[in-house]
């Protein structure tokens, strides 16, 4: 279930869309903080990471999660 896009072509706009869909928020900024600004709860962060893993075929480990605070952090991690 991964896309044909290579990770180099991945844009932050794609991650913004993915966060929008997962959190049900129409407007998501590049630097928005997932928990404090977008209101994500712990389960939402976990589901968001699962969506990134499904779409971009990456595996994100537990100890990396605390580092993922913003939309940009998620983008950087998805890009690998």
């Amino acid at each position, binding site marked *: 279930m991964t*896309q044909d896009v290579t990770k180099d072509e991945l844009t932050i706009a794609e991650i913004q869309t993915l966060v929008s*869909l*997962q959190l*049900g928020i129409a407007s998501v900024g590049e630097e928005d903080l997932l928990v404090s600004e977008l209101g994500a709860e*712990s389960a939402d962060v976990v*589901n968001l990471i699962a969506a990134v893993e*499904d779409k971009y075929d990456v595996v994100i480990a*537990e100890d990396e*999660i605390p580092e993922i605070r913003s939309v940009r952090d998620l983008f950087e991690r998805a890009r690998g």
Partner: protein
Amino acid sequence: MLAPRFRTLLEMLETRARLQPETTAFHFEGRETTFSELWRGVCLSAERLRQQGIRRGDRVVIVLPNGPEFFVTFYGVLRAGGIAVPVFPGSGVERLVSLVGLCGVRWLVGASEQPEQVGQRLVLTGCRLLTAGDLASPGFDGPDSDEVVVGDSSVDQTNDAPFPPVLQPDDLAYIQYTSGSTGDPKGVELTHAMVLANLEQLIAGMGITRREVFVSWLPVHHDMGLVLKTMVPFYLAAKLILLPASLTHVRRWLEAIEHHRGTFTAAPDFAYRLCLRRIRDPKAIDLSSLRVALNAAEPVRAQTLVEFESAFGLQQVMVPGYGLAEATVGVSMATPGQPVKVDARGFVSVGRPFPEIELAILRGEERVGAGDVGEIVLRSPANTRGYYRNSKATEKLFWRQFLRTGDLGYLDAEGELFIVGREKNIIIHGGRNVAPREVEEIVDRLLTVRRVAAVGVDRGRVEGEQVFVFAEIRPKDAACEADLQALVIAMVGEIHRELGFRPGRVYLLKPRAVPLTHNGKVRHRELRARYLDGRLRGQGQILFPDY
């Protein structure tokens, strides 16, 4: 007969404050709260609640996360003679308003940062919003802290009723909402006597002693986190390390066990699987102090037991258990230190029922014998007497003196229970029971949706069961990608606003992609199967998104 040591939950806490005042009741976020501090907070909060006009039998909704404020409020409500209604702290406004209406609630206690809109909506229903800060916190040393003394008794100025009121074992202590949409509320009524009976069953059945060290991140508003993981340690004055209820930092949970030499922890199967997936260096965490890692509240997988013990170098520590809110919480647990039985189909034994619980398997109206699968029914002093203000659901809850669990299982020749499934399509989303209809009703209101199904999806490798929404849409509404995105955003937003959680994933499907019975009812299990084995995607039934 198990000898009851306390008449009420409040007597239990007061006894601890009297006999072990300086003993730590719980550790939370680096802070220790002693039983005397906790009791002082409870007395103060009861006094404040009385000043707010709360009287015997009044329901008080509590919307607080794990932490000292929860306990001070919960037991404060009981001391003031009220009935606590603890709910998921992330509950959305609509859900709270609907609960307030259902229980005829006039007070709701929330965290100080409760959004303003909650207060505004509640005022319209005649319900007052109090914050935990308005009440008290343990160790509270404000100017009013002298007004309450342990064991203090004063006369209520307004109606001369003695304060605090004298509680009876058969008084309702709290109402535990388990599931059900707004049209089908299921608030399990639990008296002090029922809860104390279950505490004694758990202690005897699980071999728990005062020397136990409990470590828990389970949410305290719900049965397993509330009863097993906080009331049992309070009952025994055993050590309790309480963590915030969070799934994002499972490592903190395991490190707390290591640091405090925890002996007893509990979680649903998915949390242990999450550890296996997220912790890359399991051998670096020493969990050898554990006597019991209870695996309960969701179907237990044999594979999780084997893999978790192997990864963390443990033996016969993870024990499967079974329970439900309608029986307070615990019904059975396998024996720690002994191999867990797994049957030919991979179902795991959840052990024998605890003392004073009579368990039977029912098919139709008949009890069946060993090996035969049927509905699990049980008779126990810890069983609820019914659902609050819901006589229809209460009537269906009992078979003679037995409580119908709605779970399917069988007893083997040695009397061990095996759970093979659930009768209903209840989804266990992050430990909270969700009826598919609750979610479907919300999505159905969107005009572009043709048909919707909410199912629990547990992909084994991810975060346990999550609500997945599958919505069929009309082709003319699928004009462009932006429309599809807007539709998903609207669905997630509405579900979050009303139910207080977001689904794990929302998929938009082509018309007729959701499988139906002959009578046109959604086949939830079949839909889940088609999603999981890739048929839905393979046959091009998923319009959006592409992952």
